[in-house]
């Protein structure tokens, strides 16, 4: 991986976050009516004195960029402002909920990586009927979005077969695991399908590779051939799509949290959006965008390191 590749990706990360923060901050300038009214929460009739205080506190009368910088630099320091609807600091609200979201996304990410690559590899190595079956299953599952999978899982594994708790996030490691299993599966399942399919095709391609034949011609044991030549060489694309999948989990965790009543960041964002509490929505969506972009960047860097061909500008 070249230094310039690293520099480009990091610059892109910073630029994307800056522009996204401008977009997020600017969005509520677009809002119909007075932004101050929105900050109180669109539903209620505000009192003019309160509105003035809010204007001052949020620097609403400042020029756009000054106001944005005030907000954005605050966020960088961990000061996300106050929520008038929840009557709490936004930073505190986020801090309370980040743990559940992190646990859920991490759990789902493990599922995507482990199950996705395992299913794809088995399909490619076994071939024949196993492959056809797994391919059909993974394509089917890819069309089932998180919210429908949530409902299905609740119906099958919490109501018909009462194996898992339905709502909440549980306490302790065991409790968290059992509470988060269904939501993590619901969140991960379509990405598992996707990663499995990409794994299958890239393992198949690598299996046909001439360098694999060389390894076999030298008497290298088949298990080593699979690990060091087939999987090792397929790992670039596999990791790249897994990374896109994990970033995708961050984007859709809100849906799973909502469906399973988990009080994470996603649920907070939805609740705040319903109440039109813009201070919270802005902060949480900025956080999600930063995470999303950061994961994508890390994935790009790692897959470039895994596959020297992409880092050299795709020319072999």
């Amino acid at each position, binding site marked *: 991986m070249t230094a310039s590749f690293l520099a480009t990706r990091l610059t892109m990360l910073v630029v994307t976050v800056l522009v996204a923060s401008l977009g997020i901050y600017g969005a509520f300038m677009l809002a119909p009516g007075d932004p101050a009214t929105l900050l109180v929460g669109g539903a209620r009739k505000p009192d003019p004195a309160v509105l003035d205080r809010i204007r001052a506190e949020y620097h609403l009368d400042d020029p756009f960029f000054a106001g944005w910088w005030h907000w954005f630099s605050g966020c960088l320091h961990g000061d996300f402002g106050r929520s008038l609807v929840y009557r709490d600091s936004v930073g505190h609200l986020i801090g309370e909920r980040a743990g559940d979201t992190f646990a859920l996304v991490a759990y789902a990410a493990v599922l995507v990586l482990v199950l996705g690559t395992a299913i794809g590899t088995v399909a490619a190595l076994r071939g024949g009927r196993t492959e056809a079956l797994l391919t059909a299953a993974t394509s089917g599952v890819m069309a089932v979005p998180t919210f429908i999978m949530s409902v299905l899982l609740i119906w099958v594994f919490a109501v018909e077969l009462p194996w898992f708790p339905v709502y909440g996030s549980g306490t302790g490691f065991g409790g968290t695991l059992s509470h988060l299993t269904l939501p993590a599966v619901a969140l991960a399942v379509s990405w598992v399908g996707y990663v499995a399919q990409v794994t299958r095709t890239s393992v198949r391609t690598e299996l046909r*590779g*001439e*360098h694999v*034949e*060389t*390894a*076999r*011609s*030298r*008497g*290298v*044991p088949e298990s*080593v051939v699979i690990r*060091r*030549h087939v999987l*090792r*060489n397929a790992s*670039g694309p596999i990791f790249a799509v897994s990374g896109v999948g994990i970033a995708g989990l961050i984007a859709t965790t809100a849906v799973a949290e909502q469906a399973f009543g988990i009080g994470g960041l996603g649920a907070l964002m939805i609740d705040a959006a319903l109440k039109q509490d813009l201070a919270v929505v802005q902060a949480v969506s900025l956080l999600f965008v930063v995470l999303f972009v950061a994961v994508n960047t890390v994935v790009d860097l790692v897959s470039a390191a*895994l*596959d*020297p*061909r992409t880092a*050299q500008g795709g020319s*072999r």
Partner: protein
Amino acid sequence: MSAAAPLLDIRGLRIDLPTGAGSATAVHRVDLALAAGEAAALVGESGSGKSLTARSVLRLLPPGAEVHGELRFAGESVPGMSRTRLREFRAGEVAMVFQDPRAHINPARSVGDFLVEGLTAARGVPVREARRRVEAVLQEVGIPDAERRMRQRPGELSGGLLQRVMIAAALAAEPKLLLADEPTTALDVTTQEEVMAIVTEAREARGLAMLFITHDLELAAAVCDRVVVMYAGSTVEELPSGALHHGAAHPYTRALLASRPSVGDTASGLRAIAGRPLSGFEVPAGCSFAPRCPRARDACRTDTPLLRAAGTGTSACHYPHITEEAEQRA
């Protein structure tokens, strides 16, 4: 040829490959014997089955391929080997050098990993010992800065250098037989010469036998003791290298010799062999060369000729050219 059991003994080899509908025969009848330390060249037009023949020695055929006939290495039947024995055999007794090192060496791993793997993963040699041996072989094939090269990726090496790496990998296994499938075709002329010189030198130093596949008849005669000619999936002639130019008895071999470009030839002086080369899949009854053969007679279209002594070598032809030299001896 020595009277003792040859190192490699191929008799009546037939290879059927799976096709869309059933299977088809790609290699019909190959007879070939190679003594220890001896080098034979396998020549013939594209698609004549040279690579399949060489690969069958390592059982490195496409999945579903069926091998018939006899294929013995040092008296042991190769098709009869168990999986474990086959791995051992591949790891230590026969090594193969492929045409395109860039495709045949894993681009994602370092050159050192590639070189060492044949000893560590395949033979259980400790890594340190394997590195030591590999470095020595690298020196031998003309790669002086071995340590640096081993840290590099294949993509950072030139084609000639990579082919030396491939040869070093083969030599490091200390095999008794080297299968070289057009090892220089992908290289430029000067590099070709260097690489062939390295192979010849290493072979002489180790008493290594070689089956050398090439399209270059001159090269074949220069580096090998004998030349074996294949056409449409069968061996059609075998003769000592020295007799290639004047002692070829099979019309196909003679046509190959006539069609080969050489210095001083003008374009008009080149004689291409009339007609299209056949692959093993489409051989007619009788002699497979008959449709293109200027000397073909009725018998050629009905009876399949087998290898038998003709001139200085053996030839599968009903009406071989009998050269004066051979006639005098007879």
